[in-house]
């Protein structure tokens, strides 16, 4: 009978685990996933943005600085959650509490454990970004209703694209010391220089080319086109393909590295 159980069904058995964990942690998550970004929007978008006047043509078509950074902040938020869920929590499960070891002692397989955890992270991204989008809406920063609705699954895709490679990286680490660097030299520069706060052509041609290659810019640009209702379909298709590919490669590496770590 067990032979007939498909992988996704076994992964679903972990839903109660993640629901239990979420019940214990959601309160803290509200602060990081909602209150902090809200402060940023008020400080950078509303208060600082008041001093910023620019030609909408230079702001990717946004009518104000606030509506320029709002979609960028949402995308950066999706990325931040993916990072935070796949660094210390993964180290905890692989090393400190050895939760993964208890999971693979049951009929669950590594691929199913990864599927469930990524599923949880993507849902968490969806929930946080939905709240964030809803909070931003009254500021009048979204030009397109359908575009804003489509932006939500885009955040899930962006979350996936970041969660799987970082998960793969974390799964093979001996200890957590590398995470400080991941945040300081990875996540923060991405947040600052991937078109979230200013158009990347301000960077100059070389750095602009670098910024265009980053996954966050892909997500920021796609989100911005959607919520501003000005979608260039070629770019959109490219961004989706890029993020899907990154997510898939990361997924493959995660399963491989976690298997090597656990099944020895």
């Amino acid at each position, binding site marked *: 009978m067990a*032979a007939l159980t498909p992988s996704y*069904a076994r992964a679903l058995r972990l839903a109660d685990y993640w629901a*239990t964990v979420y019940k214990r942690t959601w309160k803290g998550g509200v602060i990081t996933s909602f209150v902090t970004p809200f402060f940023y929007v008020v400080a950078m978008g509303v208060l600082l943005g008041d001093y910023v006047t620019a030609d909408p043509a230079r702001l990717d078509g946004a009518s104000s600085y606030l509506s320029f950074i709002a979609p960028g902040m949402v995308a950066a938020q999706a990325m931040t959650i993916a990072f935070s869920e796949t660094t210390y929590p993964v180290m905890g499960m692989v090393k400190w*509490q050895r939760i993964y070891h*208890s999971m693979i*002692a*049951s*009929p669950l397989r590594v691929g199913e454990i990864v599927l469930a955890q990524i599923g949880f992270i993507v849902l968490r991204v969806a929930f946080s970004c939905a709240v964030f989008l809803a909070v931003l809406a009254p500021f009048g920063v979204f030009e397109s209703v359908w575009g804003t609705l489509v932006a939500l699954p885009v955040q899930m895709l962006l979350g996936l694209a970041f969660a799987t490679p970082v998960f793969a990286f974390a799964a093979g680490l001996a200890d957590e010391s590398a995470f400080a660097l991941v945040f300081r030299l990875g996540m923060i520069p991405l947040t600052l220089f991937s078109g979230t706060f200013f158009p990347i052509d301000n960077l100059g041609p070389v750095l602009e080319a670098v910024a265009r290659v980053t996954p966050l810019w892909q997500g920021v640009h796609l989100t911005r086109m959607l919520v501003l209702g000005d979608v260039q379909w070629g770019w959109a298709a490219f961004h989706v393909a890029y993020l899907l590919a990154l997510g898939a490669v990361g997924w493959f590496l995660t399963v491989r590295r976690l298997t090597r770590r656990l099944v020895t």
Partner: protein
Amino acid sequence: MIMARGLRKSFVRRARRGEASEFEAVRGIDVDVRRGEAFGFLGPNGAGKSSTMRMICCVSPVSAGELRIFGLDPATHGPQIRARIGVCPQEDTLDTELNVWENLFVYGRYFGLPRDVVKGRIEELLDFVQLSDKARAKVEDLSGGMKRRLTIARSLINRPEILILDEPTTGLDPQARHVIWDRLFRLKQQGVTLVLTTHYMDEAEQLADRLVVMDKGVIVAEGSPRELIEQYSTREVAEIRFGPGENEPTAPKVEDLADRVEVLPDRLLLYADDGERTLQDVLARGLRPETTLVRRATLEDVFLRLTGRTLVD
């Protein structure tokens, strides 16, 4: 239930900059565990016990040889085998953020058991391991013995046919150990097949119907505790203890009085069928040990004989 032939496990160790070297933890063992028995793997640290356990638990691929659990191959039927075994690992792998009840609940769900069934079993198991009043306690706040009992309860949530226990009482105080032995004994009476590793000889004598002694990756002896004692030891042992540094030089003076003399850092063990008589002989030679003790031989004596060294805990 479990059948191994020529079972081997090797690991590739990569030095930071050098070439890879191979390390063989299990070097060709044959094992048969029958339904309903309690089977022990005994051996010093590094003997290959845990590597063998991990292969039986289907979380470590077999390097060579044959391994069958319930007649199934772990390489192709890992999930099916794991569904029918319970694992109590050496280190607790409990989720310390969750409470006792939640730990059992999520674990039961890993096996695909319906929620109502899991809830029913939790009641039963908490009662069995005497933790009913701790159901809502956080795991962090439990004592070592309670955590172990919780881990045992967790390993029983799928009503396993084989329960695998890796060092079940290591690090526990004597009272906690006796509680666990009592529970394991009850499980055995209920027909659960127990497979345990231990480096406590008293634990093996208490629990195991049959055992193998492993050393450096191979099996060096096999049988029931009584058979092993009969085969590898005398009936009794006279322990004599001289002052520091005097034990080893004294050994040659008593060598002919016993079947065999084992020199430990702090005492001499004289193996003989009549320990009192041997002790009298020692005293008759004018030797004056600081303390003496005559006792029946135990598995520990078998162990010393076979592995040629004292236990390293």
